[in-house]
């Protein structure tokens, strides 16, 4: 499971020895995130974002449990209970702002973590399982974030729930019954709010469980690294503790500084003012937008405005609504197939000249443009821009990556991680 040169756990303290013989939990931690886990010596700061994601989850769980002590999941009381937390509960404002901004920061660090994986080819063998579990975590996060946003029962909460559960009504035949089943009625109401609260409390713990599997699966081959070259000898690695505990600790400090700046000074910058208006089932806000981290997907949804039909016959093969919803789900589910779409044996984008161009000048701008389009009203210019960007998004993964993998001539790889870092070949390799 680990490299043969990994440090062994040898507790000196008799209490720890006693514990180790009965329940080797300290040993597990030592081998997973302590001196017993050898890690490539050349990880850059992009490798901090896994630990930062974990820290964000911990922040969400702690602040969330406290909020749940004061929150009241009723259509009449929810909105007021949130105001009560903000005005009356001691330090309530701090806890709530930390939870609100914590969600945004969770997505920020996970997005960087995902794009790290996309650039450095972390999804490739032998780490496919870590990638697949990562996509599962991401889906769970989206569900959790969506249901959490419904809880304050503001205008955006209500209409977000209406629009997103509306996705399901696009499914032929079973769609509408399915939507009513999810809502527990014909429109979002008490039944919806209660079940969303229950699930919003549950899912983060499910995420925590999947993260354990995610990390377990990475620890089998060991972490990848910016060169993408596999570890070849002891010289290529350093023990996780103290080297990366220190580096991650520093990263965590920087992360927390940004986090508290937002939570203290710009707490509502990433939210929407309409959510401070209590839900009104009879009036849709002029412009419904989801939270910023869903915007690119919302743009893909909105890009489909014309039915897919046989020209001049009026026979509709697939209505625009269904296509939009399928594209939205497809754009995420696509990531499950990525390890098999990108067939290049070279992992790191550093050594892939063509891949790198499409990454920086294709994928990244496309996702940013989709994010902007998602926030814009359904005007012709924005719709057209989202159509172009959506087309590129799918083409990037389904057409460009497979072709690039085939025709690209990668740059020469360094002989080892040590050679990439020091310029001198690995001792073990020469011996």
């Amino acid at each position, binding site marked *: *499971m680990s490299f043969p040169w990994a440090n062994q756990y040898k507790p000196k303290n008799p209490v720890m020895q006693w514990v180790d013989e009965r329940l080797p939990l300290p040993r597990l931690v030592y081998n997973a995130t302590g001196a017993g886990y050898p890690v490539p010596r050349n990880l850059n700061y992009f490798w901090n974002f896994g630990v930062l994601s974990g820290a964000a989850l911990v922040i969400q769980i702690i602040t969330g449990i406290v909020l749940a002590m004061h929150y009241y999941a009723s259509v009449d009381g929810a909105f007021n209970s949130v105001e009560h937390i903000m005005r009356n509960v001691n330090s309530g404002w701090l806890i709530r702002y930390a939870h609100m901004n914590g969600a945004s920061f969770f997505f920020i660090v996970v997005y960087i973590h995902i794009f790290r994986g996309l650039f450095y080819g972390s999804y490739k063998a032998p780490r496919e399982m870590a990638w697949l579990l990562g996509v599962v975590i991401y889906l769970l996060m989206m569900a959790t974030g969506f249901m959490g946003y419904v809880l304050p029962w503001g205008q955006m909460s209500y*209409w977000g729930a*209406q*629009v*997103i*559960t*509306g*996705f399901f*009504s*696009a499914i032929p035949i079973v769609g509408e019954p399915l939507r*009513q*089943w*999810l809502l*527990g*009625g*014909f*429109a979002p*109401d008490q*039944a919806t709010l209660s*079940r969303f609260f229950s699930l919003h409390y549950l899912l983060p713990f499910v995420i925590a469980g999947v993260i354990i599997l995610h990390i377990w699966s990475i620890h089998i081959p060991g972490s990848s690294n910016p060169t993408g070259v596999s570890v070849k000898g002891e010289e290529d690695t350093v023990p996780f503790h103290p080297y990366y505990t220190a580096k991650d600790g520093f990263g965590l400090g920087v992360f927390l500084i940004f986090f508290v700046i937002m939570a203290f000074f710009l707490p509502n910058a990433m939210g929407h003012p309409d959510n401070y208006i209590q839900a009104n*089932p*009879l*009036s*849709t806000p*002029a*412009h*419904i937008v989801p939270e910023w981290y869903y915007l690119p997907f919302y743009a893909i*949804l*909105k890009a*489909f*405005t014309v*039915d897919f039909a046989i020209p001049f016959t*009026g026979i*509709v093969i697939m*209505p*625009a*609504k*269904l296509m*939009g919803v399928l594209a939205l789900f497809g754009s995420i589910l696509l990531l499950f197939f990525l390890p098999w779409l990108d067939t290049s044996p070279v992992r790191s984008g550093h050594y892939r000249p063509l891949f790198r161009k499409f990454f920086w000048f294709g994928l990244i701008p496309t996702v940013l443009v989709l994010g902007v389009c998602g926030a814009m*009203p*359904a*005007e012709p210019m924005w*719709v057209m821009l989202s159509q172009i960007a959506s087309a590129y998004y799918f083409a990037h993964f389904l057409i460009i990556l497979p072709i690039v993998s085939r025709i690209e001539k990668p740059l020469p790889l360094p002989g080892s991680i040590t050679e990439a870092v020091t310029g001198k070949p690995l001792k073990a390799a020469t011996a």
Partner: protein
Amino acid sequence: MATSKKSGGSAKKPAKKAAAKKPAAKKAAVKKTSAKKAASKKAAPKKVAVKKAAPVKAAPAGVAVGEPHPGAQEPRRRDFINIAAVSFAGVGAATVVIPLVSQMSASADVLALSSIEVDVSAIEPGQSIKTVWRKQPIFIRNLTDKEIAEANDVDVSSLRDPQTLEERTQPGKENWLITLGVCTHLGCVPLGAAAGEIKGEYGGYFCPCHGSQFDTAARIRKGPAPTNLEVPEEITFKSDTIVQIG
């Protein structure tokens, strides 16, 4: 360390299995266990252990519990007990799922709110009101003659969801257009029912969420909504001014 663990594990397993099954072939079982013991004493325990374990693994699935006896195809009485017990548990588990799933559907009180009566006497031609039915907005619109004419001028076959105004209103009450105020795209409330709201390119309703445009018969004309605004199935005019929905 890893090596010793592996060989230890694979040597133990068949031994346990052999001990577990009882009368059928006691002799064979004893032989197997002793063979295993002998093997693990030898110099290269790992290789031998794997070799000996192989025939056990290769045995047909049905006899996984017992030893690989040659008549493996014949059903045994124990197979019957296994299948019966597992099926019983399976049916039980499936039955429990039914209430767990159905509890999420609309509850009795939600379904009970399904009929309303509205007095429409105060709605002048060209005006409309919003009211609530089953917790969903309802638009009741008194169409002007011009709006009726516009709706009837459209070539129905050119529509995404072909329907005439007549099909969408009650006989003799063509001016009363009663629809759900729920966009058939993703469920926003379209604009156009309240005074001063924009009615969109076709003079009916406009959904601000993703830009669906509805005409004066609330039929979808442009944008992502797949169908016309829904007309509730049960609409009855109790009198000229009282309408019952649901």
